[in-house]
């Protein structure tokens, strides 16, 4: 096991930089998820850690040793790929054994290791099968087995679940998390799926356009996103964003939005500032007729209601724009119905409109 330190790591292809000097320390035994939209540099970063891409600038240390110019095989890391990369011409046992290619163990020891790994992953009955005869989840387990078998200092996962269907993805997610809890190994996991990031990570690294926007525990990111991008990226449905101006008595969402009451909020000192107000659908409360006990009140008309079972998400048209709000499952909401939602002031996240950074 080892700590991985990225010190101003950058990647350039000719004159085009795709990763702009990122700093990140991944502690020994930590599960870190790199998340962001495609093209944000997360996979490139992972591949630089693996040694599959040359590092254009900065220093990479694994276990305290600078490994910038080490070949992948000398970094003692293991990687699980999106399409599993298990070999169709080899059996499960041979595939897992491939991870021991360079090890100096005797044949019997290798067999024992393969057996142990297969047992841990529930692959014992399939050892002599070829990948074509396995399900998607089993193939993914073989890929993980090949990574585990040689006891690497860290595991790198490159979108390992994105080829699986939704149900299997949830199941494998759980298995990977349990595996981490058992092995306590350092894991760097890349995904574009924020749900995966939230449910797996000790810490999430949000990336965009080759830069790190925010690093933090899942709930920290959920509760205190540093900017509009992270705020929208983490959480489903995404956070509602409303343009407003700071006033002496709260916020003004503009003359076109009389349905949005944002007054009688705690006084602010930056009156006149253009801001974006963020509020999560889960922080809005459906108001019954005549109920008006929240400082923030939003009125509109139902466009679409999406029942989820335990709750219903409602797309509500405002005079300008729209919001998504959570309503109780029992609420009967038909398109065109007038509805009102209330919220507490402390659920508002205020972002500067120009810089898109969190203000307070």
């Amino acid at each position: 096991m080892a700590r991985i330190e990225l010190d101003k790591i950058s990647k350039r292809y000719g004159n085009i930089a795709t990763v702009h000097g990122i700093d990140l320390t991944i502690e020994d035994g930590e599960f870190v998820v790199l998340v962001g939209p495609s093209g944000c540099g997360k996979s490139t970063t992972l591949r630089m850690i693996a040694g599959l891409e040359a590092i254009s600038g900065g220093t990479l240390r694994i276990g305290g040793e600078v490994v910038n110019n080490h070949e992948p095989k000398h970094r003692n890391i293991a990687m699980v790929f999106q399409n599993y990369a298990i070999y169709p011409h080899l059996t499960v046992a041979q595939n897992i054994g491939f991870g021991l290619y360079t090890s100096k163990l005797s044949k019997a020891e290798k067999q024992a290791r393969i057996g142990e790994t297969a047992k841990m992953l529930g692959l014992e009955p399939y050892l002599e099968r070829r990948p074509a005869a396995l399900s998607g989840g089993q193939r993914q387990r073989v890929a993980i087995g090949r990574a585990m078998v040689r006891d690497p200092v860290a595991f790198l996962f490159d979108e390992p679940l994105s080829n699986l269907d939704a149900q299997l993805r949830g199941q494998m997610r759980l298995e990977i998390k349990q595996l981490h809890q058992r092995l306590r190994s350092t894991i760097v996991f890349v995904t574009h799926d924020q749900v995966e990031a939230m449910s797996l990570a000790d810490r999430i690294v949000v990336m965009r356009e080759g830069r790190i926007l925010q690093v933090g525990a899942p709930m920290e990111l959920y509760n205190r996103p540093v900017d509009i991008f992270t705020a929208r990226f983490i959480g489903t449905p995404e956070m509602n964003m409303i343009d407003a101006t700071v006033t002496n008595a709260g916020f003004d969402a503009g003359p076109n939005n009389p349905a949005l009451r944002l007054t009688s909020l705690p006084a602010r000192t930056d009156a006149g500032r253009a801001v974006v107000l963020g509020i999560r659908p889960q922080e809005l409360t459906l108001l019954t007729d005549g109920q008006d006990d929240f400082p923030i009140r939003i009125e509109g008309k139902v466009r679409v209601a999406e029942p989820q079972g335990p709750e219903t998400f409602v797309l509500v048209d405002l005079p300008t724009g729209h919001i998504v709000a959570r309503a109780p499952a029992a609420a009967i909401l038909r398109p065109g119905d007038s509805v009102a939602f209330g919220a507490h002031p402390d659920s508002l996240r205020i972002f500067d409109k120009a810089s898109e950074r969190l203000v307070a």
Partner: protein
Amino acid sequence: MVDQPAQPARRHSNIRPGRIVAWTVLFLGGVVMMTPLLFMFSTSLKSAGQVYDLKLIPTDPSFANYIKVLSDGRFSRWFLNSVGIATIVTLSCLFFDSLVAYTLAKFRFPGRQVVFLAILSTLMIPTEMLVIPWYLMASKLGWVDTYWGIMFPGLITAFGVFLMKQFFETVPDDFLEAARIDGLNEFAIWWKVALPLVTPALSALAIFTFLGNWTAFFWPLIVTTDSALYTLPVGLSSFAVEQSIQWELIMTGASLATIPTLMIFLFFQRYIVRGVMLAGVKG
């Protein structure tokens, strides 16, 4: 081509006119292809005097020609020459063509495209034009009348490089990178990971190369004068010039010569079809 679910009954009760035309064309094509072969075999069963009566079924068939040809030391020598040369050239092509193809398909280096185009462009030069420079080269280097002289032009082929490159390009990079992380060196990645993933292409290339060399006539004829080095096609043709033309013996030798190709085709048939199909689609 397109199923017509609205008229399922018609398909069962009637044979469509299109089918009849297709079968007729295929049947005629089959006859045209088979007749020379049947004639070859038929002639090989005739005696010298019967060669020019053009009956398909010999009046007095006998295997005497086969005994004669097989007991003639020259024939077995030529046969072995052909087997040896075709085998060595095929193995060489499989190894070098796929090695070059893999490099061109999976590594990024300056001049990669230029190298590939240069290799491809040699496909556009006909053998007849190459034979003279080959011969000059062979004669300067003392390769005339050697096995090496017969083999050297075919040991690596542009067609094979092209075919294998198309296949290697379909191998996902993840497979190779996973192996790189597992500690394989680049040669081992090619040998243990990439090659097994393109076995259909290798089989197809093996068949093409073997058949091509088995039937090769022009170059072996030019580069050899010593009859002990003849390949089978060259040797058989010498039956026609040495004495009078002994058609029954030529046909016997030719019949025997088809056996290995027939065996290879029957054995690898599905790979040949797939190889031709893929070469067609990709090319």
